[in-house]
């Protein structure tokens, strides 16, 4: 079967190229827009990711103007920002918070999750494991278009009258649950929640695809222990996403219930804008637990694909195999497992039981071990290598240096 497929392919290439085009019944729309081809989808993710990176970067420029030069007149931004510039010529405080919130949301989710995993996992997984395409091209296409719909809504929310979501990228209730608390918690927050729900659907569709493809569609002889580290990192990243994003979806749904249907999952004992609210018995801490159950694994969703890519680049450009291939896989696995049990280190002073604090402190420090092993392995790969400094290599060495500093 496989051989006939190859033969046909050879025939095509011998033929005129335009013929090839006709026989697949592809037109502009199926080829470039609603494409099921993993390479096209990867490029769609790349372009959308770059778009978001520009938007996110631009937002941070504006709020850093205010932060870095608090005395400066920003009147010249009025043609662009309108009423968000106060009469004193400064950024409106709520708009400042909106900028920080949207910058965080955009960079963490739209650029570093969708832009990074979406682009590289889609592009590289089939190519590096010898598969013809993803397990389900259709789901892959849906994944991008859910992301696109989510992007449209999130982008749209930047322009509404009451401003986009402004409660910080962690959107802690009650601030995010009560429109009385700030104007961004009105329509802006609703749009944020809808956009994120669509985003999570997109991530899950993508993740299921990556995992299925890596498990089932490896070519003959491509055993698990021969997979490039890039693929291993995409594999673990997809698993983390698949297990943690649904929890954020749950948290967001409960928040929608609290906001719109009068439930009290996160709200209790609140007096705001001159009235005592009827909500009783909820806990804002519950939201924090649910949020960080995704929020912490999310940082590994962001870094692990970069680890994988760096491993291959350093190995190739040092002209050496990666040192400790198996240790690298075990480290990735260790990070994957531990990433699920360290979330409450974001909540030490949230008011949760101090005993939990001690458990999470212990687990958090343990996760430093696989990270340390990875760094030592990168160093040993460079040792006695024959290093060629391509731009990719320079970036990769930069990543290791950066990871030692900030990781």
């Amino acid at each position, binding site marked *: 079967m496989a051989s006939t497929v190859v033969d046909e392919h050879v025939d095509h290439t011998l033929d005129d190229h335009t013929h090839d085009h006709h026989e697949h019944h592809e037109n502009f729309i199926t080829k470039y827009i609603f494409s099921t081809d993993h390479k096209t989808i990867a490029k769609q993710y790349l372009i959308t990711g770059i778009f978001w990176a520009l938007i996110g970067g631009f937002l941070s420029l504006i709020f850093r103007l205010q932060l870095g030069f608090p005395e400066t007149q920003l009147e010249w931004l009025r043609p662009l920002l309108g009423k968000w510039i106060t009469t004193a010529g400064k950024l409106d405080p709520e708009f400042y918070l909106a900028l920080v919130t949207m910058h965080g949301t955009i960079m963490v989710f739209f650029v570093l999750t969708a832009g990074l995993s979406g682009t590289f996992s889609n592009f590289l997984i089939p190519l590096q494991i010898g598969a013809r395409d993803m397990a389900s091209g259709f789901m892959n296409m849906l994944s991008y278009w859910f992301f696109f719909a989510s992007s449209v809504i999130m982008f749209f929310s930047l322009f509404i009258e009451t401003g986009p979501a402004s409660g910080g990228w962690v959107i802690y209730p009650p601030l995010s649950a009560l429109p009385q608390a700030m104007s961004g918690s009105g329509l802006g927050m609703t749009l944020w929640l809808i956009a994120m729900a669509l985003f999570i659907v997109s991530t899950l569709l993508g993740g299921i695809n990556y995992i299925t493809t890596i498990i089932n569609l490896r070519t003959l002889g491509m055993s698990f222990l021969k997979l490039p580290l890039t693929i291993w990192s995409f594999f673990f990243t997809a698993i983390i996403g698949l297990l943690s994003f649904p929890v954020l979806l749950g948290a967001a749904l409960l928040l929608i219930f609290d906001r719109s249907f009068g439930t009290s999952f996160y709200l209790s004992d609140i007096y705001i804008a001159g009235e005592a609210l009827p909500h009783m018995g909820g806990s804002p801490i519950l939201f924090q637990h649910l949020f960080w159950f995704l929020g912490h694994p999310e940082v590994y969703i962001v870094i692990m694909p970069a680890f994988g890519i760096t491993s291959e680049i350093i190995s190739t450009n040092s002209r050496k195999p990666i040192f400790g291939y198996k240790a690298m896989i075990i480290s990735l696995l260790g990070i994957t497992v531990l990433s699920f049990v360290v979330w409450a280190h974001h909540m030490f002073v949230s008011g949760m039981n101090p005993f939990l604090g001690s458990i999470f402190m212990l687990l958090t*420090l343990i996760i430093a071990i696989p990270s340390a092993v990875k*760094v030592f*392995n990168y160093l040993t790969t460079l040792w006695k290598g024959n290093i*060629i400094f391509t731009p990719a290599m320079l970036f990769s060495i930069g990543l290791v240096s950066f990871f030692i500093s900030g990781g």
Partner: protein
Amino acid sequence: MIVCFILLFWYSIKEFDTYQIPIASEHGVITDRLFWITMAITGIVFIITQILLFYFSYKYQHSPRRSALYFPDNYKLEFIWTIVPAVVLTILVVYGLTVWNKVMAPAPEDAEVVEILGYQFAWKVRYPGKDETLGAYDFRKIDAVNDFGLDFTDKATFDDFSPRELHLPKGQPVEFRIRARDVLHSVFAPHFRLKMDAVPGMPTRFWFVPTKTTAEMREETGNPEFNYEIACTEVCGRGHFSMRLLVIVEEPEAYEQWKAEQEPWLSKNPEYLSSVPENLKELAMIKSQIEHTAIN
């Protein structure tokens, strides 16, 4: 780039004192020690690995006359650099746990209790008064004047007082009872190395011992304008930046005297006597020092 690094280091060293604000609490000394020990250990690893990274990159540049060493595995080496960080981290974990348990332990019984209430966008403080018990509250009793939602069916509320500034005695344990009225806030007092969220519906607490009076701190920092302050460190809306509460630490005698001078909340707002149940009215007037003439 090298010039940039030199400027960066020079700036960091020059501004070091502004990063490192003086400690004014007992537990602050031990948490800072933990911080600097962790900093030293990770700092050493940081410097060694960075030097190796750039030294290897420099030394093993491509040369056609040399070929790379084939060195894919060495279990002994890998074992060592898994175990060594594990041991070092175990030490840090044990040390960290002892510090954490000390700081988070329940407050001593003789601690001065102060309630801090966060709301959009300020802090209110309440002292228990002469009976040394904070009175009950209910968020449904909050109104434009009764910020705390004091529940006057509880006789412990009658002598509670609410000053504009937070006063603390030097050298005595103080326990903050922290709550929020609308959204999350966070009590942050950097000089006391203190931070704890204020959560609506879930009172939190944090205790510590202030070790330097405001006057001593003014001397130490050389700034006659110096004041301790509490800021909010949880985004809470439009006025988040402006949530500031002045804290005054004084000698215990001065503190006791200040406390004795404070008027109970109820005597400042005598119209709330109408919320007090009939059988407690007499007691309420005695405890809050309201004179009969004031209501007649």
